[in-house]
């Protein structure tokens, strides 16, 4: 009897204390609760790398009358998967950032609804997919390529590699660092590039040679580029000792832009015969709360203003024909004429199996 009343009282204290604490924290917490989107605001769900100039976004908000909430939801892969899992009751109206390696997964899972964005006819034809249904709109493209440290090769009086085949030559032994294809999107892109080049049956043989030639694999781009690579600002600081790294064709302009003082010439170059093209798409989410706003937002993503703002914010190329590229890009970047490409369907059908065999071939 007694013990019962004790526990009751302990219970009461606990409840009283907690009610007080909850009330206390609710006062502060409620102000930032994510309220249901009203028709005046539109939510863009995207990955962590999304970036847009403030004035460009403001101009859109002013002309359209919508307030844009940007929800950065982790790295590209996780963001897509979360969007798929929560598609019945999505976190926003538009999703941006699904690339060609994940596109089929998004489409097969019915993530998007159909909408043909205004200005779609301005998009270069090579980027258009899903033409009949218009579930996604291409927004940008970029190339995953091997970058090299210019100083290293100049000092050694060695020509930097140009093609996939060059990378297996003895002259480039122990020089290349790449990313884990199962956890990193440039890592996967590089693998797909080799598969496109050497075919379904040939790429494994190529990777055997690459492994024998001392390729190093690390988990993510961060580590590869900023720690292992000798050509980047971060890598120099961390005393990286690999002069070849799998990165992007747009990495050299980045090295120029974020250096103080800015050098005349980029310290890194691109091996243009090792590139795989990545295209990023956006789409109107299936159960979007604010369909009208979402459509306006999609129109905005392929408008000339946004397309020309992108290069210096996300370091990707516009897909809209006739977009002006910033000087930094034309001067220090390279244009890749013949990147490797692969249809999203083919990627979807093979990705898992390829990554699996790649893992056991290269990592174990």
């Amino acid at each position: 009897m007694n013990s019962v009343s004790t526990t009751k009282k302990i219970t009461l204290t606990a409840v009283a204390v907690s009610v007080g604490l909850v009330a206390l924290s609710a006062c502060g917490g409620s102000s930032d609760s994510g309220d249901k989107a009203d028709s005046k605001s539109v939510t863009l769900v995207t990955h962590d790398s999304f970036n847009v100039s403030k004035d460009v976004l403001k101009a859109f908000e002013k002309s359209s009358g919508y307030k844009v909430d940007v929800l950065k939801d982790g790295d590209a892969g996780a963001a897509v998967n979360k969007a798929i899992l929560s598609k019945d009751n999505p976190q926003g109206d538009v999703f941006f950032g699904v690339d060609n390696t994940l596109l089929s997964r998004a489409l097969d899972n019915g993530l998007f609804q159909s909408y043909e964005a205004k200005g779609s006819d301005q998009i270069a034809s090579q980027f258009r997919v899903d033409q009949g249904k218009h579930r996604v709109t291409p927004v940008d493209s970029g190339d995953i390529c091997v970058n090299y440290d210019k100083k290293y090769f100049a000092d050694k009086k060695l020509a930097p590699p140009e093609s996939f085949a060059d990378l297996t030559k003895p002259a480039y032994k122990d020089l290349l660092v790449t990313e884990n294809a199962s956890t990193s999107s440039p890592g996967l892109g590089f693998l797909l590039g080799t598969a496109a080049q050497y075919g379904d049956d040939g790429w494994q043989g190529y990777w055997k040679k690459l492994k024998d030639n001392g390729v190093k694999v690390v988990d993510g781009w961060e580590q590869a580029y900023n720690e292992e690579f000798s050509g980047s600002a971060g890598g120099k600081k961390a005393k990286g000792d690999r002069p070849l790294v799998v990165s992007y064709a747009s990495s050299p302009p980045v090295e120029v832009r974020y250096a103080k003082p800015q050098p005349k010439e980029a310290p890194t170059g691109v091996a243009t015969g090792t590139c795989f093209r990545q295209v990023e798409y956006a789409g109107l989410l299936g159960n979007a709360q604010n369909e009208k706003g979402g459509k306006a937002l999609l129109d905005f993503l392929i408008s000339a203003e946004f397309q020309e703002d992108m290069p210096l914010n996300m370091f990707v190329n516009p897909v809209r024909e006739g977009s002006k590229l910033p000087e930094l890009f034309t001067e220090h970047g390279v244009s890749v004429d013949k990147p490797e490409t692969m249809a999203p369907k083919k990627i979807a059908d093979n990705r898992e199996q390829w990554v699996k065999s790649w893992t056991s071939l290269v990592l174990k």
Partner: protein
Amino acid sequence: MAVPVAFFAVFFAYPVAAIVARGLKVGGQWQFGRIAEVVGQSDVRHVLWFTTWQALASTALTLLIALPGAYVFARFEFRGKQILRAVVTVPFVLPTVVVGTAFLALLGRGGLLDEMWGVRLDTTVWAILLAHVFFNYAVVVRTVGGLWSQLDPRQEEAARMLGASRWTAWRTVTLPALGPAVAAASLMVFLFTFTSFGVVQILGGPAYSTLEVEIYRQTAQLLDLSTAAVLTIVQFAAVGAILAVHAWTVRRRESVLKLVDASVVARRPRGAGQWSLLGGVMVTIAVLILLPLGVLIERSLSGPDGYGFTYYKELTSAEGGAFLVPPIEAVWNSLQYALAATAIALAIGGLAAAALTRKAGRLVRGFDALLMLPLGVSAVTVGFGFLITLDKPPLDLRSTWILVPLAQALVGVPFVVRTMLPVLRAVDGRLREAAAVLGASPLRAWREVDLPMVRRALLIAAGFAFAVSLGEFGATVFIARPDNPTLPVAVARLLGRAGELNYGQAMALSTILMVVCAVSLLLLERLRTDRTTGEF
């Protein structure tokens, strides 16, 4: 008992079951064949094997390094003991991202060891094992040391008087008494290292992966929900087994031991042997715990133009682009979330502890062990489970702020229960009766008798729940709204971006988190009483 059961059913069992079902139920048909299929894969078996042996190795190493520490904290009296006990506990509540970062800064490229001797241990098993020791040192010191400090040394002395050698006396008297505590501590360490996520992900490199990391990879990267579901079940079974053994050792520990007041037993070390033991433990703590924490602080202060508060100042600006808000707001978010999580954990844990005190028997003991399960179930699974289950009325919580505290409270509850239980069980009902006989009203009797005894335990439990909530990462990272990051989430986000400035800010935020944890633990140390022999 109904409230905690309902809480766990709705916020733990249901989301976890839903995400597992999503993976294993295809077109309304359960695919149990997948279990055998997945477990049969050689790379899955490889992961299982690595998970198990690194946990065993981590546990052994932790015991080896921390047991002398437990002895020193239990038997010796020295200056700064209270502060030191708080400091060694800081790592335990630090988020794994921060710990991983500290060790990377110490053992990785350009780290301290690299600069001094050219030794690099990142992407080796050693980095993982050392980080695990760093993490779990306090578990052993507190669990084993707590009991050790209350063992009556006269029993051992008596044995020696009767002719036993020092070793025999220790082996036959002290060791058996300590045995169950050592076993319980080992199991806790094994549990924590078996489910290790952040440490392995940051320090392990592509070649090493635990079950928890693999579950994350299968869910978040590959969206292979069926493999993830099988792995979750495997981990669940393993953790269940560990907890069953744990419950059994706890019960054995509750068998009668002659305990004395710790302050009677502890004394200043005497003789060269004892002093050098104390010295050895201090050096171990300095190298293993203070050094990584120090490296974090050093990095946070080492700006582009020498030492200064550049990175801390930068935290107040939203210009970095990593977030829409200045990173410093994460501190405020975290405090609010942790406060709410503490309140929930106290309410649920308090009720559960009260129910467990009142009732006894097999069923209740089972419930006791069940309450520990959230510590061992993949946080990623819980996070994803929340995402797909709590999104429709009447439980449409996904876009509300309460979701994060709810997930954090799940890991806080076990700590509250473990801290409250021993104290609640120790309240003597006769005191209350005596008060009633002397004319006190029930309210007064409760206020005069129960409250003073329970209050401290309640505060300690609150402190632990608060610190653990503050550091929770795995589940929070999935459900925290991007515009409201918590401290650990903000640290991870900053670390994931290129550039010196982002790295420096991550270090600065980690340092702030560390200080907040340390302060709350120091406050706890002041409240610590000799009565509390809770496990943490």
